[in-house]
């Protein structure tokens, strides 16, 4: 018989604050918990069981897990119209079969209609202990301590797909093709980029949606239907269009002066700011939807997407291991 997990797609991953667990969330509404400590040891021969999840938690049957976030205390799961919070302690210690979320937040006015919205992204503001939730065309700001809605940011006209925040700014990308830069003090849009209007960046056959944004002090990185491109923060003009062979960008990140990017492509790319390819990693998924990485206590990065397999690298140069959901 064909295993149901054969067709599972992992949309989100997170590594626990202690660095020993990898949690993946897939389209069947299941959290799978892997132990990273053994997998990352290079000299150990791994059995098949070591590469399987230690246990699984069903969050909400039939609804896909769209986003995951870790705070020092909680694992926050974005499903469809609902956010669940699990205490990390309970995930690590209690019987996983009876694992119930410690709390949940309903996204207002969205539940139980036909038009229920996926919570595509949750970001964490460490200073204020706020979370930014991208759901539908709105970004919701919650105070995590009281789990109270602080603000609706609704300037997008279609689903928000990705967020990136610094101390003062929040950058969002959505299906309407606009990248908005918000000032977090006033919650106003200060600037915006519209990549699909620039000729060399646009790809009309794929659409205008933005799948990934990332930023540092000088640059904004974004891609999706349009090609992956690097924009000057201040001048809002593109400086580099990256030479990737892809059918849509879903993951992009500025990391240690390098660009990491993936999406509907057989390769995951590591590139320099000027667009030179540093490495290409062949991946098992048709589309990469999620990447997580850490250096301590285990130097590891995990790539996951539309495949029951999670590719594990110790550097961004080649695949070391492959975890499997079944």
């Amino acid at each position, binding site marked *: 018989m*064909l295993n149901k997990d054969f067709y599972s797609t992992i949309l989100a991953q997170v590594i626990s604050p202690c660095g020993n667990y990898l949690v993946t969330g897939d389209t069947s509404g299941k959290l799978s918990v892997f132990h990273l400590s053994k997998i990352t040891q290079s000299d150990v021969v791994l059995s098949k069981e070591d590469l399987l999840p230690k246990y699984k938690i069903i969050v909400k049957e039939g609804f896909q897990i769209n986003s995951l976030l870790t705070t020092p205390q909680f694992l926050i799961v974005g499903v469809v119209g609902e956010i669940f919070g699990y205490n990390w302690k309970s995930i690590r210690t209690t019987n996983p079969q009876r694992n119930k979320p410690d709390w949940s937040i309903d996204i207002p006015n969205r539940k139980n209609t036909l038009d229920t919205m996926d919570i595509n992204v949750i970001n964490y503001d460490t200073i204020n202990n706020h979370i930014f939730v991208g759901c539908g065309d709105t970004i919701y700001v919650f105070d995590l301590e009281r789990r109270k809605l602080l603000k609706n940011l609704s300037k997008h006209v279609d*689903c928000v797909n990705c967020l990136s925040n610094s101390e003062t700014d929040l950058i969002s990308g959505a299906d309407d093709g606009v990248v908005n830069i918000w000032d977090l003090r006033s919650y106003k849009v200060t600037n915006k980029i519209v990549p699909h209007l620039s000729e060399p960046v646009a790809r009309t056959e794929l659409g205008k949606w933005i799948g990934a944004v990332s930023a540092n002090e000088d640059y904004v990185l974004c891609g999706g239907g349009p090609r992956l491109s690097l924009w000057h923060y201040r001048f809002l003009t593109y400086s580099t269009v990256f030479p990737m062979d892809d059918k849509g960008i879903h993951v992009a990140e500025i990391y240690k002066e390098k660009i990491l990017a993936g999406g509907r492509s057989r390769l995951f790319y590591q590139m320099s700011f000027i667009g030179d390819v540093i490495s290409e990693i062949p991946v098992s998924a048709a589309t990469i939807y999620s990447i997580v990485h850490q250096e301590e206590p285990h130097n590891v990065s995990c790539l996951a997407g539309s495949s029951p397999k999670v590719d594990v690298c110790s550097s961004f140069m080649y695949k070391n291991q492959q975890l499997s959901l079944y």
Partner: protein
Amino acid sequence: MVKDASSSSIKKKRKATNAEADSEIDIYKKVIEFEDKESTNRQGSIDANLYFELCQDIRNLLTEVFELKQTDPSSKKLRDIQTEIFIKMCFIKKLNRTDKIRHVFGKETLATEKQKCDSIKLNYQNLVYELHHLVTETSKCLAFKSKDEDIELVPFEEFMKEAPESLTKKFLDYDANDRVQKHSLRLARLEWELTQRKNLAHLCKSLVEEQKKLGQDLVERKDKLNALRPLLMNIINSTKPLQEHLDISLKEMRVEHKLAYLLPDPLYIFYVNVVSYKNVNDLNLEVEIIGDQDDAVQWKESAQEGHFLKDDESDEQDQEVAEVEEVVEVKKRRHRKSIQQVDPMEEKKNKLLEIHPLKVEITASLPDGPSLTIIFSYQTRLKIITVTSNATLPTKMTGNCAKDVLMGDNILCELIDGDTGFESPNPITKYQIKKVGVTSFQSLIPHIGYAYHWAQKICGMDFLSKQMNCDEVGSTNVENVMKILFKRLESRTDLANQLQLLEQNILPKLPKSAECPPTSACSMTKWSCITYQKYCQKEFTRAFVEEDLVCPNDLFYSLLLTRANASLEALIVIKNNYPQSLPLFSLCMKFNGVHFAENNDEVRDMERLLNVEISEKISSVLTVQIARLRSYFDVYLETTDSKAFPQTMTFIRPTCARNRKRPFKFRNMGNGIFTQY
């Protein structure tokens, strides 16, 4: 030389003078004799030295003469010297003579020695010839063979035991190294063999005569028995009115029961069970025993005889005898073989594959559907049940694919999971067939039929097997197997009906419960059977082949959907236990490039929905799957390129969530609406 010639002339002269005076001859002879003696006695080297001395002397004298002539030509001494020279010359002459004689003597001795040598050589040559001749003669003798060596004799021990004492007493202390004795032993044994053979020939003759006699006796008795038959028939016929009057038709039952009695044990068990099952449950099931009664009777008799024989054989000695007999048999057969040229392996194989003359045939049929005839045969040597089957199709069934799935072998394949019938359930079979040179049981299937495990079980046969499953045992009693069989037949008929329509590119009627839109903008353009090999060659089926989800016993089909310039090829694997296992779809879409599950999330999602998300295991599940596939294809095209493909389906948003999920899920609201969840 000149001197030689002169000396010989002198000899001649002397010879000439011989006749004139005998006295002279005497002297001459004496001289000669003396000279001979002298020459032999003297040594040549001394003579030579003497000669050199003389020459030197002469030379010295001549110089003296020369000096004298210079100084005093008229010296008196001159004369003396001259004489001296002459004397020396004479001396030389004498030496020459003796030398000549000696030379002649040497020559003569050489000639005589040579002659001697020649005669010895001749002698030696003769001896060599003689030797050679003798060698060839001996080898001829050694190579001699007599016809008696080909004759097989009774072993020595037996000969000593059985032959009369007059023949054997000489050899009581037989020594194998004594050649003479060995030879005489051989002669004696040959003689014994001859007498024995003569006796045997006599015996054979008498036995043949006896056989003839018995044959005649048999014919006579048979005639008598034949004469008895009409009498018996008369009696039976005369009882008929009475039977009719009492309303009992014993005859047919009796015939059946009589045959049943002749069935081999396993088939008998099955027959009894299936007949009672049929009688209790009113089913479209016919049970019949086929085969010739006479053959069966004969077989039974011979089998019983075989049993007696076996009992006797329990004695070890007798077993040995049997072996000897077998050897004799083999010899005879070989002899025959040279005439008929029959492969002994082939003969053995045929013998091994012998089946019981009686078979049980059951026919399961569905109302206006196909009927399936299954024949159970018992392999008497292999001790297993083999099954052949045949399906009669209703006339309206015309499609190739449809006919295919209703073929008997196809229906019965994997009736119980993993039971292909390709392997013999009896572990001994492997060695039996190896012995006759057959490597795999599978190659015998066309001859003898399939050896399904369930067939053994319903016939009450049990073998040591690799996996013993409680479930399996439970489901193998006759009732369960018959239920499974009918269920399989029904589902296969349903499947065949669907395939029949699909082959004409018509979507069969959807069940009411099916959640999918009734119409579609795309069209089914092709439905065809494909082979396992072809299936494996496609790139987009690789994952299934690697995961071992398909096996060559499954059924493979290809479906092509088209809409405008887009096409969707679906390869479908239908498992034998359809619809318990869902048909497995592999998709490959051609629209702005080639898309399949490994490079396209939407195609992957379609496959997921078709292969794992359908829960209803109804017999028309294939139709439901195809109908859904059609709608997925429409939704995909309309959400991807709304300009080229005008919207015919209703959906709220074309994509949703980060994985840009398409609204493949159909909801039966109003005219039907597609959503993501």
